[in-house]
């Protein structure tokens, strides 16, 4: 994996930068933007398990994301504690993932895409129409953020650190998952499903477990989302949320660990920061995606690595002159 092959010092520097971010950024607004990038990165990483490693493109993950959010928010609204609400939300989401998985894994490719899309829309419909439970499009407020071990997450800094911790755990779990024999078999089902079947693997079960794993981390991201926004409404479950997450994965680079993170950063920064300066930020975002697909069809992260290697080789190829590479 690109992340594993990267020099150890680069990983160390990146993590050190992330941990110290609140100290050199200062303004809580930018710290909040960083928190949003990290929480959407968790969402994109979760989706990438299916899209990248399983070859299963889901357009219904906003449904799972919102289900975790609603379950958590409604539990809190009913007066339960944060721990109970969070555990329930995760349990509900994993359970829903199982239902989604069993239904959607009856097919792959376009069929899988359409079934997940339909399931996601059902969640949206329930959130929108089941007034007595979800309060319709007026949404549900989450009045407080949790205070694990007595540390309140109300401030931008503390929330950022908590999100960073969750993000790092998610990233490490993903790395272990991908490198495990199970991860290899999941990639096997993506590349050679019939051969895997012939070898005695239960392709369906492998995909279902991957779906559950993806659903679990989607649920975690959904919880981070409601704690960050302290509000959830049916728009979270809308198709646009699913499509955005998918764009994060595809633009950053599927089947890589860094790709979804880069994709999340691009989308969040365009939506929240660039939109303050450029009125037609949607257009800019579109141009960026088109550029990525045109010049780096494999995604931003693997594409950059490829271009970098090309440039490196071109420099090395020249005699004598390339003695001082700009690295």
């Amino acid at each position: 994996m690109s992340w594993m092959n990267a020099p150890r010092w680069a990983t160390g520097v990146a993590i050190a930068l992330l941990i110290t971010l609140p100290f050199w950024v200062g303004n809580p607004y930018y710290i909040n933007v960083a928190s949003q990038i990290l929480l959407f990165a968790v969402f994109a990483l979760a989706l990438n398990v299916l899209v990248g490693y399983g070859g299963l493109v889901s357009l219904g993950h906003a449904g799972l994301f919102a289900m975790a959010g609603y379950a958590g928010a409604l539990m809190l609204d009913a007066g339960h504690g944060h721990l109970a609400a969070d555990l329930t939300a995760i349990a509900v989401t994993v359970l829903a993932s199982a239902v989604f998985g069993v239904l959607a894994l009856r097919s792959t490719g376009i069929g899988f895409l359409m079934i997940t899309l339909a399931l996601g829309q059902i969640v949206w419909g329930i959130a929108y129409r089941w007034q007595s439970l979800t309060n319709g499009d007026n949404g549900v407020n989450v009045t407080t953020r949790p205070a694990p071990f007595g540390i309140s997450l109300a401030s931008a800094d503390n929330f950022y650190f908590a999100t960073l911790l969750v993000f790092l755990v998610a990233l490490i779990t993903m790395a272990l998952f991908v490198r495990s024999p199970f991860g290899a078999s999941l990639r096997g089902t993506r590349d050679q499903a019939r051969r895997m079947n012939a070898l005695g693997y239960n392709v369906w079960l492998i995909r279902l477990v991957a779906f559950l794993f993806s659903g679990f981390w989607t649920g975690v991201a959904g919880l981070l989302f409601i704690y960050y926004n302290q509000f959830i409404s049916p728009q979270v479950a809308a198709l646009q949320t699913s499509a955005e997450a998918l764009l994060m994965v595809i633009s950053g680079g599927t089947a890589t660990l860094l790709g979804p993170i880069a994709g999340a950063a691009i989308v969040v920064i365009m939506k929240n920061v660039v939109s303050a300066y450029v009125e037609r930020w949607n257009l800019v975002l579109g141009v960026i995606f088109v550029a990525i697909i045109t010049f780096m069809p494999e995604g931003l992260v693997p594409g950059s690595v490829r271009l970098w290697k090309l440039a490196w080789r071109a420099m090395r190829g020249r005699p004598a002159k390339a003695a001082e590479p700009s690295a």
Partner: protein
Amino acid sequence: MSRKLSRRTFMAGTAAAGAAATTFNFPAPAIAQGAPFKIGLLTVKTGPLAQGGIQMEQGLSVFLKEKNNTLGGRKIELIVADTGGNPAGAKTKAQEVIERDKVNVILGPLAAFELLAITDYVRDNKTPLLSIAAAEDVTQRKANPFVIRPSATSAQCCHVMGDYASKDLKYKRAATISEDFAFGYEQMSGFQRVFEDNGGKVVKKLWPPLVTPDYTPYIAQIKDVDCVFNGFAGSNPVKFMRAYADLGLKAKIPLLSGWTAMDDALLRSVGDEAIGVLSAAWYSADGPTASNKRFVAAMAKEFNVLPGGYSAGMYVAGQCVEAAIQKLGGKSDDRVALAEALHAVSLADTPRGPVKFDKLGNVIGDVFIRKVEKKDGKLVNTIVKRYPSVSQFWTYQEAAFLAQPVYGRDAPPAKNLEQ
């Protein structure tokens, strides 16, 4: 307010600023001293709600231009943020203007679900907010001291229409039709409550989805009623009215509407099928006040449009901010004091008429019944009746009103439905 008053307070403001800068021993120049007063406008410039969002920005820009960008002696810095019309976007943009730009006051956002997503946040950060969004509970069961609404609640005008339809028009049986979401429920329930308390009956309630390609199947269900009350918003009223006329109902059953369904800004998008439609609105471009004449003329000159509620709402919000700054004098940077001063604002001359606020922060103001007419080849909303000083509680007791659940799809329940 009159020109004279604002000039006098303007002088007081500059004098105070001059006094503060004690090292300068001569009167301060005509430009206010010190840091500007920052206004953050949360609006929608992209997506399906952009039309209303752009009108909001136009209304505010006309107001600031008229005031030479100076309110109560303080230079204004305007920061415009595009929420994209969704709750998460509204939250992030509220954080941007509060935490990064440190605004003194927020105007906006546009949609109810955007406002609901940030009311707790502005309270925690003690930043006053003047919104145009209509969600009832924001100034009722979930009121908070930093949220002020100079436009109207969803039902504020619909109560009036319920009264007018039953008492003045003597209608007995009504059907309602509106989009299937909270703004629609709150409007229709307000109409139904007053209409039925006055002896009328709502016998049919129809809820087409927000995005409905064809209203025919819904309109086809309307029969045997004296009137149809509709609460559509955005560009839906245009589609609905055309279908209503095409199906031949316009000649048979009169159409009544809420303010968004017959907003003045919509008039250029509709044809003769709108003639005769009655609407209840808290703002009318036809309004008689001096500031409204200035406002309508400026909007025509700057943007070549007839202004509707979205623009007027921001103009009035700007006037409220100005009045609060004038009242606070040198203390206008104190956000808590600003919120209190905003609640106490009482204006005699705004484009919508006199404005004051109840203790929950919602406006008490006039509501107009208007009728669409054609004058000189142009459609206009002509005022036929004015209901002065309408509260969000209509004529009901506040405590009793708030003890009921918030207006919803089935709250209060409709007891007279047929079929």
